């Protein structure tokens, strides 16, 4: 019965979402307070209903109720409990339900914490948010019902894809969805503002925390996915420019642009129309990503659901929200007059440049991702666009972005002097050039990439520190503790970007690889390490069998570690996985993979040295942390409380 309750709750949520879309919107138009007030309880009820539905599905997974088709297809009674739980979103229907759960969570959060919003704006924001719920709940109920029953339940389930039975990947989707769906809040605010025809500094202040949160979650989600690919897929790659990765990367780039332009709206009341447009585009990219992943329209995407019916449905949702949003923008953008004026050299201009570079780089990723599809439609040509293209076409924009970032961050609002900012950065510039030179010498000129990456990394990190230092002014370091948290957030995020850029350049330029056949007991050396394959044994895990190697690592004759790379086979899913053994150190990873047994009794062993690998994800975590620190800035905390109406007070009307 519980699955049916879940289904019922989902239908209920759909009905509530319909009410939430229509009633407050009319109320806001006619200034009917009662109708506007429907929005908050509706958003809360809708959230509770979806929680019940999600709980019902989780119950089915946890208790291994194989009469539910989704559970039978994606779970197994032997699976560890953690993966029974995370298996709920390891499939198309369940992950879509998680998507909707997070959507309604954001709606409920806006209803709870939106007390300081003017009533009509709040009603409209929640109504737009409700309309997104309507679309996706309809999608779930009509094309992807997670609660379908089987007439003849099997004795045991088909198991979750073993590659997904991993802690890194288990929590990757929730973070990504928090990011994707978080952008729906920026979209709802943008549409509500367009309907009202008014945007002011307060609007910027309300939109920015939501965008910041979405961007932060996307950063963590992408980093988790990339880290998982690194350790689980077995060849130490961390980014493949796969259409599905690009689908998450594009919203991240646009969200990055949006959260910077929202600052200009908030502080200077400028770039209003542009910020609204960015908010619409950002959510458009979220939906595009959903479409790419779930429609199977791009052949290279090994997507979830290759079901044309679902693809068309999502395309219709995308067309409605993106098309509708853009139409509304075209009709109303003229009403957004900018107040703040700024010179060509100013913080505002620097942020415009930031926006241009981020949007253009997202556009490059977009064209590259969709080009094969377009070429096939237009000329019937089947061609491929892969990593080599993106590396060549995308990287220059990011290099320029990194070059101008520290300078832009130092420019004052309204009017600045380029020479002054550059002079303040002279020390950092010298350090960056020295780092580039050192990288070039150390890498013996093997690749131009490493010097560029090292130089940019030092430039960004040094620029962030210099920024903090200058903010302290003449007060010296004692003032550091009194700086607004937003300043620390900015320095953390910008420095984190520098660390990631350096990590990417270093691992790409300086990785060493070795593939060979090794007999048990045999040793070989690589990059100063001596590795010995001690033995290879068979073992049994909870739901897999494993071939495990014992590799002894020593350096200069002293043992430093034992590494145990594994090759697992999951019999129920009929699938092997590689579990690389990685010794992570700040300055580089040693990465060992055990391959197939050879005819002569040896084993294929692949060894990589990956310099500065952890810096890639470390930098990403710092970026996300920067977002968090910024989110906790006083102006959001104080502003959130200051304008709250008296609780229980009756509106004056």
């Amino acid at each position: 019965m519980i699955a049916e309750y879940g289904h019922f709750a989902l239908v209920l949520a759909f009905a509530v979402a319909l009410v939430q879309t229509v009633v407050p919107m009319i109320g806001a138009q006619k200034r009917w307070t009662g109708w506007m007030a429907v929005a908050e309880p509706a958003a809360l009820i809708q959230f509770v209903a979806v929680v019940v539905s999600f709980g019902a599905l989780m119950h089915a997974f946890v208790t291994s109720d194989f009469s539910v088709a989704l559970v039978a297809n994606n779970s197994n009674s032997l699976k560890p409990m953690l993966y029974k739980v995370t298996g709920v979103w390891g499939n198309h229907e369940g992950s879509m339900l998680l998507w909707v759960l997070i959507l309604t969570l954001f709606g409920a959060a806006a209803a709870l914490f939106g007390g300081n919003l003017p009533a009509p704006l709040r009603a409209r924001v929640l109504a737009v948010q409700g309309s997104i719920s309507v679309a996706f709940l309809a999608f779930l109920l009509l094309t992807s019902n997670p609660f379908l029953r089987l007439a003849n339940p099997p004795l045991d389930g088909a198991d979750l894809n073993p590659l997904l039975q991993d802690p890194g990947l288990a929590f990757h989707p929730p973070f990504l969805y928090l990011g994707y769906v978080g952008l729906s809040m920026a979209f709802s605010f943008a549409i509500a503002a367009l309907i009202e025809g008014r945007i002011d500094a307060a609007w910027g202040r309300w939109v920015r925390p939501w965008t910041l949160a979405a961007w932060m979650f996307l950063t963590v989600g992408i980093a988790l996915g990339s880290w998982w690919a690194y350790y689980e897929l077995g060849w130490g790659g961390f980014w493949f420019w796969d259409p599905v990765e690009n689908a998450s990367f594009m919203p991240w780039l646009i969200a990055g642009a949006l959260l910077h332009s929202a600052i200009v709206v908030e502080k200077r009341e400028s770039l209003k129309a542009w910020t609204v447009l960015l908010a619409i585009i950002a959510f458009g990219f979220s939906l595009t990503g959903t479409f790419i992943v779930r429609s199977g329209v791009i052949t290279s995407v090994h997507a979830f659901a290759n079901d044309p019916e679902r693809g068309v449905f999502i395309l219709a949702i995308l067309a409605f929200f993106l098309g509708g949003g853009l139409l509304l923008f075209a009709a109303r953008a003229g009403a957004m007059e900018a107040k703040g004026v700024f010179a060509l050299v100013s913080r505002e201009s620097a942020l415009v440049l930031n926006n241009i570079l981020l949007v253009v780089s997202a556009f490059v990723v977009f064209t590259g991702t969709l080009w094969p599809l377009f070429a096939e439609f237009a000329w019937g040509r089947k061609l491929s666009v892969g990593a080599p293209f993106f590396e060549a076409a995308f990287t220059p924009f990011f290099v320029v972005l990194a070059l101008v970032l520290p300078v832009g961050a130092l420019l004052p609002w309204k009017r600045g002097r380029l020479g002054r900012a550059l002079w303040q950065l002279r020390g950092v510039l010298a350090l960056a050039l020295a780092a580039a030179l050192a990288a070039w010498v150390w890498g013996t000129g093997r690749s131009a990439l490493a010097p560029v990456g090292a130089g940019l990394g030092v430039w960004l990190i040094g620029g962030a520190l210099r920024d903090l230092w200058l903010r302290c002014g003449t007060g010296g370091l004692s003032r550091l503790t009194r700086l607004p948290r937003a300043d620390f957030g900015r320095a953390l995020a910008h420095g984190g970007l520098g660390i990631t850029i350096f990590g990417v350049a270093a691992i790409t330029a300086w990785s060493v690889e070795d593939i060979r056949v090794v007999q048990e007991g045999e040793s070989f050396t690589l990059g100063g390490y001596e590795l010995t394959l001690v033995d290879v044994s068979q073992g049994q895990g909870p739901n897999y069998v494993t071939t495990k190697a014992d590799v002894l690592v020593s350096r200069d004759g002293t043992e430093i570690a034992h590494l145990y790379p594994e090759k697992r086979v999951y019999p129920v899913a009929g699938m092997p996985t590689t579990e690389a053994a990685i010794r992570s150190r700040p300055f580089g990873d040693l990465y060992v993979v055990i391959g197939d047994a050879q005819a002569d009794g040896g084993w294929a062993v692949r060894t990589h040295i990956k310099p500065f690998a952890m810096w890639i994800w470390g930098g990403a975590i710092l970026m996300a942390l920067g977002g968090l620190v910024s989110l906790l800035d006083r102006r959001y905390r104080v502003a959130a409380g200051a304008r709250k109406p008296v609780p229980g007070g009756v509106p004056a009307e």
Partner: protein
Amino acid sequence: MRRLVLILALLWPLAAAAVTPDEMLPDPAQEARAREISRLLRCPVCQGETIDDSGADIAADLRVLVRERILAGDSNEEVIKYIVDRYGEYVLFLPPARGVNLVLWIAGPVMLLLALMLAWMAARRRRASATPSELNAEEQARLEQILKN
């Protein structure tokens, strides 16, 4: 679960190891060239993997073919042309900047120029509207009239 996608593709590569020791060329310089070329070639039956990352039989065949051509004395470009002539442009991950693919390559730079131009024009317009424009002769006359009164 965006990442799930990678997975189907990855099933195969994991099943059989990608580059195997017996395929590799004894000369490290030639092997390095083979790896460089492999990065550009897509396994025709897999989902968006290079022939190096794939464990499919045809990817192994292609890896061996690349190495045969290198041993036969082909340059990198000749090896790629040899493979693309036989397997179609689908196997090439880096579309050459020729013909219609030129659009793909210049799309980014063109958009950057357009965006910079638009931003510059918007900035000029903004400043123009912000600084009060000069009065024309008629307005000047009227102003003097008003001031006189």
